[in-house]
């Protein structure tokens, strides 16, 4: 399996400006601050982290919906991060996105048919072909063709998300960025939508970047998982390896928070102290040191890089990887 997408040192800093007439930049919110990872063709990469850690910004920066401040996004061997105009528009056929909120992501003034046809219309698919494809896609995502003349507000959240998925599939993309596609849905509906996405991945040979904060969902759907904290990736690896053997203390804390379906089980929870630091003024050294129970002097001064922490495909960015494993052992 070759790399379909490679992200190198991606940064997105939103400027903070002051002054009404001559705005001066007084700082920056470092939403994404040097993220690197790769996605192999046909796999699902889970991207997890707390709210505000830059997961969604990363997704949008890959799509160039938000212009990245720095770094490269290499898709099929080409850096697409500086694409503009028609070149960028053509790229939209290959990379699509499914949004979190199925209520906000469908135009309330368009029928389902118009919504699904919109991407095809943008790329000049003939009308007859469009109509056939709409019927086919509605069927694929579990809706019926008689739904196509209705408006989004006539559907439930799960149905709307299916419409959003159908729209993402219209252009036969290779890579779909799923921005928390199920977190706005009821748990029972979540399972249906996730199963649908897995089926579609097999059927259409899709590659997913699956952004989520629900760790069990990510465990279920992902092949590999990247854990983000304050705009950086702190740990990345094969899903089974990472869940069974988390190296970074932040990952350990996250995983210990997954509820178990056994009331008698005595759990060893690792509860983090304090709040997420402000991304406009992140801590020096390891960004996690303010909340890390194992932090040492080196963590406050030196920024850790991702390094191999096991024989498999598993990297973590922590100075104390060995020690943490030992003390937890």
């Amino acid at each position: 399996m070759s790399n379909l997408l490679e992200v190198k040192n991606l940064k997105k800093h939103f400027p903070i400006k002051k002054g009404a007439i001559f705005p001066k930049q007084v700082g920056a919110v470092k939403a994404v601050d040097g993220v690197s990872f790769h996605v192999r063709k046909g796999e699902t990469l889970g991207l997890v982290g707390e709210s505000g850690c830059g997961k969604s910004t990363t997704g949008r920066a890959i799509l160039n919906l938000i212009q990245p401040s720095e770094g490269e996004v290499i898709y099929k061997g080409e850096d697409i991060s500086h694409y503009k105009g028609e070149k960028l528009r053509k790229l939209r056929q290959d990379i699509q996105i499914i949004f979190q909120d199925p209520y906000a992501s469908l135009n309330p003034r368009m029928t389902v048919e118009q919504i699904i046809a919109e991407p095809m219309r943008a790329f000049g698919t003939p009308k007859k072909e469009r109509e056939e494809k709409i019927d086919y896609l509605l069927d694929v995502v579990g809706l019926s063709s008689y739904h196509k003349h209705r408006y989004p507000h006539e559907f439930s959240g799960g149905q709307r998300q299916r419409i959003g998925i159908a729209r993402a599939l219209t252009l036969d993309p290779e890579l779909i960025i799923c921005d928390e596609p199920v977190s706005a849905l009821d748990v029972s509906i979540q399972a249906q939508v996730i199963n649908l996405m897995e089926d579609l991945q097999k059927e259409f040979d899709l590659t997913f970047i699956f952004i989520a904060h629900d760790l069990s969902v990510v465990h279920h759907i992902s092949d590999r998982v990247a854990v983000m904290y304050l705009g950086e990736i702190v740990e990345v690896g094969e899903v089974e390896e990472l869940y069974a053997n988390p190296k970074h203390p932040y990952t350990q804390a996250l995983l210990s928070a997954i509820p178990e379906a056994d009331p008698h089980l005595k759990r060893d929870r690792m509860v983090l102290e304090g709040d997420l630091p402000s991304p406009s003024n992140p801590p020096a050294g390891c960004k996690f040191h303010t909340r890390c129970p194992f932090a040492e002097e080196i963590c406050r001064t030196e920024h850790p890089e991702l390094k191999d922490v096991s024989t498999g495909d598993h990297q973590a960015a922590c100075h104390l990887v060995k020690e943490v494993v030992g003390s937890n052992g």
Partner: protein
Amino acid sequence: MSAQMDLEQNSKVKAKKPKKESSLWGDALSRILKSKTSFIGLMIILLLIVVAVLAPVLAPYHPIDDGSIIDRYQPPSAEHWLGTDQLGRDILSRIIYGARISIKIGVIAVGIAFVVGTLLGGIAGYIGRWVDNVIMRIIDIMMAFPSILLAIAMVAILGKSLTNAMIAVGIVGVPQFARIVRSTVLSIKEKEFVESARASGVKNGRILMRHVLPNCMAPIIVQATLSVGTAILDAAGLSFLGLGAQGATPEWGVMLSDGRAALQTSPWVITFPGLAIFLVVLGFNLFGDGLRDALDPRLKQ
């Protein structure tokens, strides 16, 4: 009582049923009909339209040709319900025909303001940056002039005629539309469905026309309704000053202007066209206010 309960139940059933149209306008209509003032406004507007359409049937005399100078300044009577003017023409007939001109003025002037203002405001809001600055500063300059002065200046440039008066009144109305549209576009363009259109490769022009502007319609429709009243008033003002409709045209502003010489001896010549203007402007304002309240999402339930 029971009828009212029936009605309530009906509306509940309707609300649950999936409707083909977006429910926004359906809800709005039912709320408008519930409010007395906006209902009166709607009735006045409907009356104006009926009178304009049926003018040849309703008017007892021809507005221009009938009447002789011998019958001038006759007070209201069975023969001439609202009296006659300085040339002996029947005032009622002239007011009835004047309704046609008022509707024409309202529709065309507001149409110009609507189209130009929506496009300018939409472009300014959607593109942003320097384009926004340039367009909105021009709009600010236009707003800095009193509207009637600006209209007079424009008619002075274009020449005196009813058409030019309508154009002038339309252009004067542009800034309000542009501002409302711009602010609405600013909020709509950040919505996820706009982002998804961008992610689908939809071109900017189409995103603005198909995704952004249709979702800005509610406040624009309200503004349009309120503007019709102002437009009729402004155009009547221009005609009164001799810059709009000319000569024998049964335009309400012209009628006011013609009758002002005889204000003390024959007050009916000027009173009734004035009342007509007042009533129509009131109607559009009441309806516009009701429409705004009905479309305001904060008032829902």
